[in-house]
């Protein structure tokens, strides 16, 4: 049975193809269109998935969209009506937006793919999140917690999933918290207030939080109040996202926290203003963590289960994830590699397979590499045409040479096999560097990533040795499999791992199993033999504002214009010229 899952029209549109119960491929549209957070209908991703699997669209048994678009329109209309007459400015835009394309999704899919409308199915948004987490996790039964900004109406859902002995599986979401009460929107409101881009820069708030003290917790708690049943409500007068798309927070919010940061102002942490913003970030971060831990703990007590599947955009918050693991009572927390809306494409397809079509549950390979493979010949051709020396190395020579490069302080652009599905570079589209000095961190920030100083870089290390350098609680290695948790760097190693140790002594670790990315695992071991520490800095292979590279030529063009020293695509290696060409191209070409 061939089922295509689609997510689109909000952010991170994607497509995923499941054949006979197992994912074959999945990719975000942004990786192909090269437009970050591309939310358009994922025509490129669909086309690539079908090509990759050799499937004709007409042979698809079902196409599953990741949410119920009319239910979403219902929420938008109802919110506008409830905010009458304050919503008069946003109403025309909201309606034009919805009626323009979003509510006609069945017709769009049908006409684009040429499949009958009866084969186009829908899932609830949070069910798609739940399926993406549960059906890809190696667990028999687990509690479910899904938290994001908003889907149709739900912003937080709780339930359970189970694989039965007869081969069937089920996911049931028992309860939900509804818009406008939303942990994701609370965090996004602070993201906007702190001058960052909503739905994109939430991780900057998390990074900034480490520089502050949670001195404003009481103020944040005036925005979010717990209910006797263990849920919460947001106090509406502090927010405007429910009435307008152009502003998230109200004047009353500004009265409470002070003037908002301008998007282009630098955050100077040595100033009072900079510290206020950092304290603000630390406070909302702490409240988010406390609320999630509390809800997860109650869910653990209620279900008595050892495992938790946690997904939705909020599950990208690695600090909160680590606290849930440490404090809620769950022994293992599974966060999928694409916990956000992109992952819903895969979740929707898996849900349709197991639940709508009652197919037997199948084990899903436990890795994130469902995207397009890298073509090293493409790199070799482009680099050769530009006069670069190309090296085609055997496996052993490649590993030894790149380990030497890393030990010598060179920065390596690393492309290996299929690209990751999800926002993290987990070893197939990564920039790798030695993790030992702050100078390396500053060099990466300055010459490659062009990003704020306060943002940390992540380490990758073999899972077998992770505990030596990082304080991993029981279940920590699992959470670190897809870089989903932030853990303390052991104090004795912090100075040796200065480039990846955040200001609060933590790191967003990837604990790598050999089977998941064998080549990178071998490289880590080879690097460990040289430096004594098998840890590398692993950051996504992109520059600020661009999607992670997908094809070899994209890696090559990034390599050409930033401070990466060595570029690797499978076993093809290109190095920067020791000296630049004699005359710039501008002078040589009329």
């Amino acid at each position, binding site marked *: 049975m061939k089922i295509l899952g689609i997510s689109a029209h909000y952010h991170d549109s994607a497509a995923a193809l499941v054949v006979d119960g197992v994912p074959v491929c999945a990719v975000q549209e942004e990786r192909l269109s090269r437009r970050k957070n591309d939310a358009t209908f994922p025509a490129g991703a669909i086309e690539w998935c079908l090509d990759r699997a050799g499937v004709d669209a007409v042979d698809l048994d079902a196409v599953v969209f990741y949410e119920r678009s009319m239910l979403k329109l219902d929420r938008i209309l109802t919110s506008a009506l409830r905010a009458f007459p304050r919503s008069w400015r946003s109403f025309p835009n909201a309606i034009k937006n919805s009626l323009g394309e979003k509510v006609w999704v069945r017709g769009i899919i049908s006409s684009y793919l040429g499949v009958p409308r009866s084969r186009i199915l829908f899932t609830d948004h949070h069910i798609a999140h739940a399926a993406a987490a549960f059906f890809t996790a190696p667990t028999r039964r687990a509690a479910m917690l899904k938290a994001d900004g908003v889907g149709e109406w739900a912003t937080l859902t709780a339930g359970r999933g189970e694989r039965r002995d007869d081969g069937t599986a089920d996911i049931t979401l028992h309860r*939900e918290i*509804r818009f406008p009460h939303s942990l994701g929107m609370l965090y996004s409101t602070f993201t906007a207030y702190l001058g960052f881009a909503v739905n994109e820069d939430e991780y900057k708030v998390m990074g900034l939080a480490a520089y502050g003290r949670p001195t404003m917790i009481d103020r944040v708690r005036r925005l979010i109040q717990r209910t006797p049943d263990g849920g*919460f409500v947001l106090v509406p007068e502090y927010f405007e996202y429910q009435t307008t798309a152009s502003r998230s927070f109200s004047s009353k919010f500004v009265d409470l926290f002070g003037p908002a940061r*301008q998007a282009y102002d630098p955050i100077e942490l040595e100033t009072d203003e900079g510290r206020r913003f950092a304290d603000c970030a630390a406070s909302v971060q702490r409240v988010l963590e406390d609320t999630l831990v509390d809800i997860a703990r109650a869910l653990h007590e209620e279900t008595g289960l050892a495992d938790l599947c946690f997904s939705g955009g909020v599950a990208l918050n690695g600090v909160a994830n680590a606290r849930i693991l440490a404090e809620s009572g769950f022994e293992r927390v599974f966060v999928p590699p694409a916990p956000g809306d992109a992952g819903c494409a895969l979740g929707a397809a898996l849900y349709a397979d197991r639940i709508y079509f009652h197919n037997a549950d199948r084990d899903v390979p436990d890795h994130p590499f469902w995207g397009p493979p890298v073509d090293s010949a493409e790199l070799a051709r482009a680099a050769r045409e530009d006069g670069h020396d190309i090296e085609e190395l055997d496996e052993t020579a490649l590993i030894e040479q790149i380990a030497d490069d890393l030990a010598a302080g060179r920065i390596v652009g690393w492309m290996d096999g299929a690209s990751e599905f999800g926002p993290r570079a987990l070893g197939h589209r990564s920039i790798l560097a030695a993790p030992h000095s702050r100078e390396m961190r500053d060099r990466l920030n300055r010459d490659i990533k062009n990003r704020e100083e306060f943002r940390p870089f992540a380490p990758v290390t073999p899972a077998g040795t992770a505990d030596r350098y990082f304080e991993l609680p029981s279940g920590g290695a699992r959470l670190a499999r897809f870089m989903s948790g932030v853990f303390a760097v052991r104090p004795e190693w912090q100075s040796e791992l200065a480039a990846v140790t955040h200001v609060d002594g933590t790191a967003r670790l990837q604990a790598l199993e050999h089977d998941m990315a064998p080549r990178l695992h071998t490289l880590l071991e080879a690097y460990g033999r040289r430096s004594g520490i098998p840890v590398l800095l692993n950051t996504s292979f992109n520059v600020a504002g661009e999607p992670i590279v997908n094809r070899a030529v994209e890696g090559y063009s990034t390599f050409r214009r930033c401070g990466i020293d060595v570029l690797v695509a499978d076993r093809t290696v290109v190095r920067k010229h020791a000296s630049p060409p004699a005359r710039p191209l501008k002078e040589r070409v009329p």
Partner: protein
Amino acid sequence: MRPIHKWVWGDFDRRVRKLLLFAEVETDGGRDILRAAELTSDPLLRRLYLEHAIDELHHGDLFRQRGSALLRTRSTHDRTLFNGSPLPGGHGLDDLHVENEPDHRLLAFLHVAEKAAADRFAIYRDVVDDDPPTRAIFEEILRDEVFHMNYTYTQLARMSPRSYKRQVWRARASRLWKRYLRAAAGVAGLLGAVSLTVVYFVVLPPFAWLARRAERRERDGWIPISRDRRDSPTSQY
């Protein structure tokens, strides 16, 4: 037009907003040209596109840095320049889909766009003579634009020796057509917004009253999910 530009650039907030908007447009344009570099099969064009893209990205940085520097001197920090959340946007090359354009058409388009940008930036340079750092940025960019205009034209002539002039005229016409489409879409959007606003105030009040009444009956906190909701795979509701 020069007095109008002088008036536009004379206002501090508008100047900052313009600079930051240019930053986004130049950066987006740079990314489009970068994409062209990744897609072209012509090695020389790839190198030139890459050089061009690096210039555009650098221009974006220059505008961003200058806009930010001016922003820091702004006294009225109590209200935000972009009303809180959204950053100024706008896609660089007229929402060009580089993937769909053959090299000769892209070169013609770039040539015309660069020429238009150079003309505009020359005016802006002249009207910001009270602000030497901003003026210096326009001067630097104008130097780059000369290279961009030249290489796009010579490469177009190389790629399409028989029809390069026609390609340029076609690009000009296409630019005009896109401008018309944008204006038409703007007018249509405005009419739509007016109609929907009328609907909002005339038709919606009773429904708004009902919606608010229903809201009061909703419970706070957790709400149970009905078991049968997921049993409707074909429903969009």
